[in-house]
């Protein structure tokens, strides 16, 4: 019983690493871990309903983007025996304005363009670009450096991966705090504080 309550109390709020810039107007619900140098714009939504979300470093999550770890459609939220699955997002990804991602595993250096829609059973490796307004809902692993574009979701492979948006990230990390309030980051503690009796 103790362990259960510990687990529940362990992470009710988002764990934001130092160096990440997360605006107060963004909506973060559930167990979310955000890595360093990640920028979360206002009105972005990261919702961990059916399990925790772990976001790596150097990601750029723009306005009205929705990253949601939700229950699959045929399973009711209250049913027993549903293991919470963790959604992992790697480093240097870009979630452009208005996109929606439910994919459980996203690698590094991917770009999900505006109004794209990723299903739950997709796995992005690295260097993938999901074009604007493309809805991809298949159950597959997208190979590296794939570009999905067009109204028919055509695919092609590009020879080089998209560049990480370091310039843009640096710019935003300087400018955003001038105009928005930021969410508090968690200070990294080197030693475990002893529990007082």
């Amino acid at each position, binding site marked *: 019983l103790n362990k259960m309550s510990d687990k529940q109390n362990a992470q009710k709020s988002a764990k934001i690493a130092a160096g990440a810039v997360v605006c107060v107007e963004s909506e973060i619900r559930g167990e979310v871990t955000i890595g360093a140098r990640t920028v979360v714009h206002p009105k972005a939504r990261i919702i961990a309903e059916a399990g925790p979300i772990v976001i790596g470093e150097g990601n750029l999550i723009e306005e009205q983007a929705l990253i949601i770890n939700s229950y699959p459609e045929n399973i009711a939220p209250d049913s027993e025996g549903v293991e919470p699955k963790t959604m992992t997002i790697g480093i240097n990804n870009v979630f452009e304005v208005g996109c929606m991602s439910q994919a459980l595993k996203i690698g590094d250096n991917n770009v999900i363009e505006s109004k794209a829609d990723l299903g739950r059973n997709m796995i992005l490796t690295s260097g993938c*670009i999901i*074009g604007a307004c493309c809805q991809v809902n298949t159950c597959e692993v997208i190979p590296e450096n794939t*570009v999905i*574009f*067009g109204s028919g979701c*055509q695919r*092609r492979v*590009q*020879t*080089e991966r998209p560049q990480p948006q370091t310039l843009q990230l640096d710019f935003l990390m300087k400018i955003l705090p001038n105009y928005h309030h930021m969410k508090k980051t968690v200070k990294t503690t080197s030693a475990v504080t002893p529990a007082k009796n």
Partner: protein
Amino acid sequence: MASLLQPDRVLYLVHGEKKIRSPLSTLYFCRYCSELRSLECVSHEVDSHYCPSCLENMPSAEAKLKKNRCANCFDCPCCMHTLSTRATNIPAPLPDDPSKTTMKKAYYLACGFCRWTSRDVGMADKSVASGGWQEPDNPHTQRINKLIEYYQQLAQREKLERDRKKLARRRPYMPLAFSQHTIHVVEKYGLGTRLQRQRPGAPITSLAGLSLKEGEDQKEINIEPAQALDEVEPLPEDCYTRPINLPEVTSLRQRLLQPDFQPAGASQLHPKHKHLLIKRSLRCRKCEHNLSKPEFNPTSIKFKIQLVAECQVLLTLTNPVENITHVTLVGCEEGDPEDINSTAKVMVPTKELVLAGKDAAADYDELAEPQDFQDDPDVVAFRKSNKIGFFIKVVPQREEDGDVTVSFKIRHDFRNLAAPIRPSEEGDAPTEAIWLTHHVELSLGPIIA
């Protein structure tokens, strides 16, 4: 606003060479013939060429030389979007001191839609932003040019002989410029588009040109006939067993957009120059007046002359002109040859409907006197400035799954405000009204059981 949002609901019948039914928004109105014209009963003429991305005008002769392609802009071979030039900084050794390196700008082409870059096909980065990109040469260009020259000469010779025969026959009469057949021959080998479309009564300058050509000594162009080969290259042995690399295979559309090479592999898809678009002007075939003439400047979407039907013809009983207009609706009689599409009988109001003129200031003029038309409430549902709503009774004839269509004729008076200047005799009435009749078909939608 059926004209904008549901264009196919109200169709007007155009009496041209073919009977065409189309919505008013696609029709033109020739005010000299006082008739509706559709795109099929006007002649289309090319006004000017321009590039859709850099909006640069190009004179027709230059366009023909460059095969109607822009010199600066490229199309992505993968998705046919416009390519944009991007720059990167690369370290390059200084010419004076090879050990030090400075940053130099290198340019490459990239597509914003499918992320294709010129580096994908192995094209090296250029040091100039524009003008450095060349299309690969077609190895067959020389042979093709020689063949074209030979056939052009052949066509000219045939045309000369044919017209000589025609002249000899028609000596007693006025000689006509060209026969229809010679025009087709000319068109076949592309000798020139100016030679087509001889207007009736135009001077016969082309015959003078023929006699000049006879005087020149013509070069005899000989071509070698194509040689047929007995042996064909065999297919590679692993043709059936080799696994296909799907991203490398080009689609038919990508392949056929480059008819010179038609590459099967995506790593040989080179970008092509962008195709030019044209601005066209429309001319009524009967009276030879211009119906639509766009501005020359590619950035301007306005027209110098624009006789669009919506501005002249009555539009679902909104009065587009500024005079009071009288409208009579007449149902189609039995056996009317134009009445083929209607599936219901319609009873239209028999009285004449009066529409007020279009007054642009009416919305803002609060003190205006209310219009005093005595409207029969059984006929007129509402009236607002230059619009009127009226009742019709529809009796569907068949129990169909399709739409109910009714047709009737609208008869209204039309004043030609810009009539051609005629010498006025003793003070004519400024403009006379003429009565126009249009056959209208109205699609009312499906029957709800």
